[in-house]
């Protein structure tokens, strides 16, 4: 059995490729079913957000599971898998587990620590459960990943730092533009962080929100959610006249807003200031635009610079988060290896034998004048009882080992006999 994870994110693929994967909720179930039907796939899940699409699957060994997942991904986007290959990352077993933990904990996000991703992973998992493609491994893996994400959120400061980035952006907007209640906002790209910041701006009572996105359906969806107006991507330069705050997060390879576009805009605006918040990496807004009078351009590094005077501290927090991830991976690995039949049989025997030994000693302490022979007989008898009790469970485990449900039996037995001492979150998750 192997855990494989394949997909792409803002780190591996340009937006032109990523946007082909934007999956409406309704069709996700369809692809989950296709995933489940792939030969050798036992469990699976599809995570699709604005910045990433990833497929996580538990597959039988040596059936080229990765290749099949790639074909499925290509199918979603309507591409050939050959075209897709350069943009995909492929991870197996521990690497896959670690990646999932990092994604869920928002360590792999555009804005590290942004809170949206945990909800998105939960939703992806919920879909997998609803479509009955998750099983014992995925259930455990996802619960572990939520646990790790929550630990990181409460034990490190990366989450508060992300929130404060969006807070700092709004604060800056107010320092430049004064009260925001009569201001216009333009969102370019409709990613998670953009949405978060936009909601923050909405709570300040901005007058209107224009939303431009490469995928118009997503723009329309977000516009409806926030009471804004979707505009075509091509209209961005023309609409800059109306926008006092421009929040860009497309992650396109080239600048979306170039310096020469703004000369006319500023004339038309009679130099009313514009505040560009560029949270895309690579940047969407030419930083040279900051040189124009009455225009202020802040990219994500600038904002982070505003928030924390101390970059070292931030690095330290991320380091701590990575350590927590590593611990999570380690725990999961231990759990996974415990699902092997032979070690389970051994520890089951060991456990019962310990009980037997303990009880035997107690009994001997009452029978002070028992002979050596009597002791030997008692010893043999208790051993025989244990063997009789264990006979059926063990043959069942051995019998089921090669079957799909084998892990389930192993897991059940480990729970019933409490073979894993430190499985603290098991009951709470």
């Amino acid at each position, binding site marked *: 059995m192997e855990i494989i994870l394949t997909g792409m994110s803002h780190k591996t693929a340009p937006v032109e490729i990523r946007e082909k994967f934007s999956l409406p909720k309704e069709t996700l179930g369809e692809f989950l079913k296709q995933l489940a039907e792939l030969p050798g796939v036992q469990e699976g899940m599809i995570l699709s957000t604005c910045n990433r699409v990833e497929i996580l699957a538990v597959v039988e060994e040596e059936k080229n599971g990765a290749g099949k997942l790639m074909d499925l991904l290509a199918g979603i986007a309507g591409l050939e898998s050959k075209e897709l290959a350069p943009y995909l990352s492929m991870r197996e077993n521990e690497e896959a587990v670690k990646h999932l933990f990092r994604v869920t904990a928002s360590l792999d996000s555009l804005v590290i620590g942004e809170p949206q991703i945990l909800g998105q992973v939960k939703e992806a998992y919920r879909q997998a459960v609803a479509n009955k493609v998750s099983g014992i491994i995925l259930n455990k893996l996802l619960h572990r990943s939520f646990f790790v994400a929550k630990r990181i959120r409460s034990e490190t400061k990366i989450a508060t730092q992300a929130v404060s980035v969006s807070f700092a952006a709004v604060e800056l907007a107010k*320092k430049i*533009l004064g009260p925001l209640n009569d201001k216009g906002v333009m969102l370019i790209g409709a990613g998670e962080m953009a949405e978060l910041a936009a909601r923050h701006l909405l709570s300040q009572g901005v007058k209107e929100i224009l939303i431009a996105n490469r995928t118009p359906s997503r723009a329309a969806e977000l516009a409806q959610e926030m009471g804004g107006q979707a505009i075509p991507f091509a209209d961005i330069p023309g609409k800059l006249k109306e926008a006092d705050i421009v929040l860009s997060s497309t992650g396109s390879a080239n600048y979306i807003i170039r310096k020469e576009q703004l000369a006319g805009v500023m004339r038309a605006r*009679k130099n009313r200031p514009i505040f560009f918040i560029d949270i895309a990496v690579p940047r969407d807004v030419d930083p040279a635009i900051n040189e124009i*009078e009455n225009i202020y351009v*802040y990219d994500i590094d600038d904002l982070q*610079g505003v928030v924390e005077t101390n970059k070292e501290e931030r690095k330290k927090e991320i380091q701590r988060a990575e350590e927590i991830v590593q611990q999570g991976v380690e725990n999961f690995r231990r759990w996974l290896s415990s699902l092997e039949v032979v070690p389970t049989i051994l520890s089951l025997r060991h456990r019962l034998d310990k009980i037997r030994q303990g009880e035997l000693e107690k009994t001997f302490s009452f029978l002070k004048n028992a002979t050596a022979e009597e002791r030997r007989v008692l010893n043999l008898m208790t051993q025989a009882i244990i063997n009789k009790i264990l006979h059926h469970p063990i043959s069942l485990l051995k019998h089921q080992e090669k079957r799909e449900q084998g892990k389930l039996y192993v897991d059940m037995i480990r729970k019933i006999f409490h073979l894993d001492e430190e499985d603290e979150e098991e009951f709470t998750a």
Partner: protein
Amino acid sequence: MNIIFFQAALVVYLFGTAFSLAYLISLRKFFSLAGKYTLFGGFIVHSCALVWRYAEAGYTPITNLHESLSFFSWSIVGVYLVLQLKYRVEVLAAFVSPLAVVLIILASLFPKEILPLAPVLQSFWLPIHVVLAFVGNAMFALAFAAGVMYLIQERQIKSKKIGPFYHRLPALKVLDDLNYRCLTLGFPLLTLGIISGSVWAESAWGSYWSWDPKETWSLITWFLYAALLHGRLTVGWRGRRAAIFALLGFGILVFTFLGVNLLLTGLHSYN
């Protein structure tokens, strides 16, 4: 007696300024309120000084450098007290009150005796002309303070080096509005000041305009503020450029007021 009030006003202004600066540093609400009310108290005392002097002299006491500087200082504090009602910019006092204090200290350095009024100044135009001119100047002084604050704040935001002033200073928009408001109030006053002076000159000196240095420099000041107003209204000058203009304008205005009197001689020299 007016001198005692004058000196009391000076001391109270000093305290007001100290409180205002303490607020700028500590951001403690107490200092903000203390600064504002102390300046208000100083303004009352200062007003008493002016009224007393008017009673003692028998004419509007804005005829020599001591009186002019004192009145200018009074006007700035007065204009600040009025404008802060609309623009709730708490740190404004820290930028305006030092200006008023410097002016009133300067005033205290010049001879304070009440002298008989020169015959040429004995006119009902005297109060009209000088009050218009100085209240207008006070507006420009506030525009100057707003401009300084704007440039500090703008520099921080533009360079992305967020220093201690970032949180203390208000939004750029507010400072720019304040600058604009002072300009739209100060410019008509300056214009009327020049016109009233010109009318008075016609009756006193026999000519509306005689290119005396004060007149010339007032005209330069007027043109500069006119250019700024025009730029603001038609091509949308604002922000940094407007702030720099406000600084420049105030610099020329101070020269028109002090430099001309101290360095050049002309019809407006009465010392």
